């Protein structure tokens, strides 16, 4: 059965993934909107940057974050200056890393959803007295609901499944940074196979259920390039 340490890891994972998903939607929505609509030449650059976590080994991302968040890194200096201490090996650091790591999984489905809205639909809203902000909330968001569902679920599940980045910048601190994937690794290292089975089974069941619901509910489920 699951031990207290296992339950703690599950709870921590849930907290990290929820908070990261929330932040991802907050950042990802305007970013995806900008990418979907801008004629700016910077679009290709930003798109490539956002998509990097799709192809980079998580350890590479984790390594750079570790350097940046460390005492002599740019982010580390900033957080020191703000009296926040160092972010590496903390819960906050883990959430920030998760946001970067899962960014393309949220931005891409949103971008696809926004792209599919015809310019004329927005123009029609403008001719019906809707300001750009009202158009966004009353036309764009409701039409993009399936895109938001996909983005949230992919962002959440992908954060739950992260391992390499956590090991690099979060380590293995109980209640702070020890998420389920790390806990499974610990069990296997200690040859506690039954424990590992329980946790791994939980993750497998969770991931499958969520994806099963996603593919059953949506008329146009996410494509492979969005899933990775």
């Amino acid at each position, binding site marked *: 059965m699951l031990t207290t340490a296992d339950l703690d890891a599950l709870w921590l994972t849930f907290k990290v993934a929820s908070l990261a998903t929330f932040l991802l939607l907050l950042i990802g929505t305007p970013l995806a909107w900008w990418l979907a609509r801008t004629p700016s030449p910077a679009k290709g650059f930003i798109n490539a940057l956002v998509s990097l976590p799709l192809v980079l080994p998580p350890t590479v991302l984790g390594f750079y974050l570790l350097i940046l968040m460390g005492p002599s890194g740019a982010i580390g200096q900033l957080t020191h200056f703000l009296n926040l201490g160092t972010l590496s090996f903390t819960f906050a650091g883990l959430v920030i890393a998760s946001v970067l790591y899962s960014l393309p999984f949220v931005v891409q489905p949103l971008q696809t959803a926004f792209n599919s809205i015809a310019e004329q639909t927005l123009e*029609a*809203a403008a*001719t*019906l*007295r809707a*300001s750009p902000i*009202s158009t966004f909330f009353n036309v764009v968001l*409701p*039409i993009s*609901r399936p895109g938001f569902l996909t983005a949230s679920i992919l962002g959440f599940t992908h954060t739950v499944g992260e391992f390499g980045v956590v090991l690099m910048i979060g380590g293995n601190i109980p209640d702070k940074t020890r998420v389920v994937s790390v806990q499974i690794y610990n069990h296997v290292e200690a040859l506690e196979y039954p424990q590992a089975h329980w946790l791994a089974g939980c993750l497998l069941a969770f991931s499958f259920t969520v994806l099963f619901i996603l593919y059953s509910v949506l008329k146009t489920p996410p494509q492979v390039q969005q899933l990775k």
Partner: protein
Amino acid sequence: MKPLTARFKLTYSEFNLAVDLQLPSTGVTVLFGPSGSGKTTLLRCIAGLEKAPTGYFEINGHCWQDSGHNQFVPTYQRNLGYVFQEANLFPHLTVLGNLQFGLKQQKKASINLKENQELLELLGITHLLHRKPDRLSGGEKQRVAIARALLLKPDILLMDEPLAALDNKRKQEILPYLIHLHQHLSIPVLYVTHSPQEVAQLADTLVVMESGKVIAMGGLTETFNRIDLSFSQDKAASSVWQVTLLQHEPEFHLSCVEIENNRLSLPLINAPVGTGLRVQIYARDVSLTLEAPKATSILNILPARVKEIKNDNHGQCTVRLELGSQSLLAHITQKSAQVLDLRTGMQLYAQIKGTSLLG
């Protein structure tokens, strides 16, 4: 009412729009021209969907754009109605939700259906209110889009080829609604089309555009018949006359109208004597003869003078005739033109096989 002033200058890579127009403040003004002539761009400039670097537009004392004073009112703050080629209904809302969308933006109470019953009935959409757009036909969608624009009581209604995306059957289904609307609306309507048929049926004023410029403008009957346009060689080319109803001949199911001191017989019209009417005569229904025929089944034979002759590359000849101040188009074969030895200035007779009543 003051006329509307529209002045715009806009340059794209290979396209220049340069117009300076005084548009009538009532009735339907049709912007007519081939694709690429700039009529849609002009409409979009008026709506503010396109920002012309140099532009001026004023309606009912409201200035929507005055580039000289750096003034540009964004589209959503202009009191206009816009109907696109596609209905552009919001797919997540029902018909009712679509109709209420604009009113909700203005924080007004939701639509009073009773008050607008007449409009909804006129457009034939009362039974559709609770349907989603994906369960409407193309024609129904477009009617909802028209109602959605009109419910906001705009100062002007802009329509960009509202029938172009519909098949012929749907077009014929929607045209009567537009003609009815035309009679009920007190606001100016700007209607973009490249269909002579729609021009003939809807226009009060006609603005003809070509490569970004206005090449002719005026009342429908003068402008439609006068100008030398590519569409006068079109198979469906026609002339439009404004006529007055003279008398009825119910025993023959005919009505008699007057045009330039000539009489014209039409199928019985359900309207009182003295009514002004618009009739359309297709060029293919007009034949020419040099002498007044004595025994013929054709009722309508009018004296006319040849104004202009134009041959195309398919053996067809387009003849523009003059009847007093009116003009009439005839399509005959080039062979007939040679046999008759047609020349400009010749007096002859036009035999009209059929006429149709508009509006």
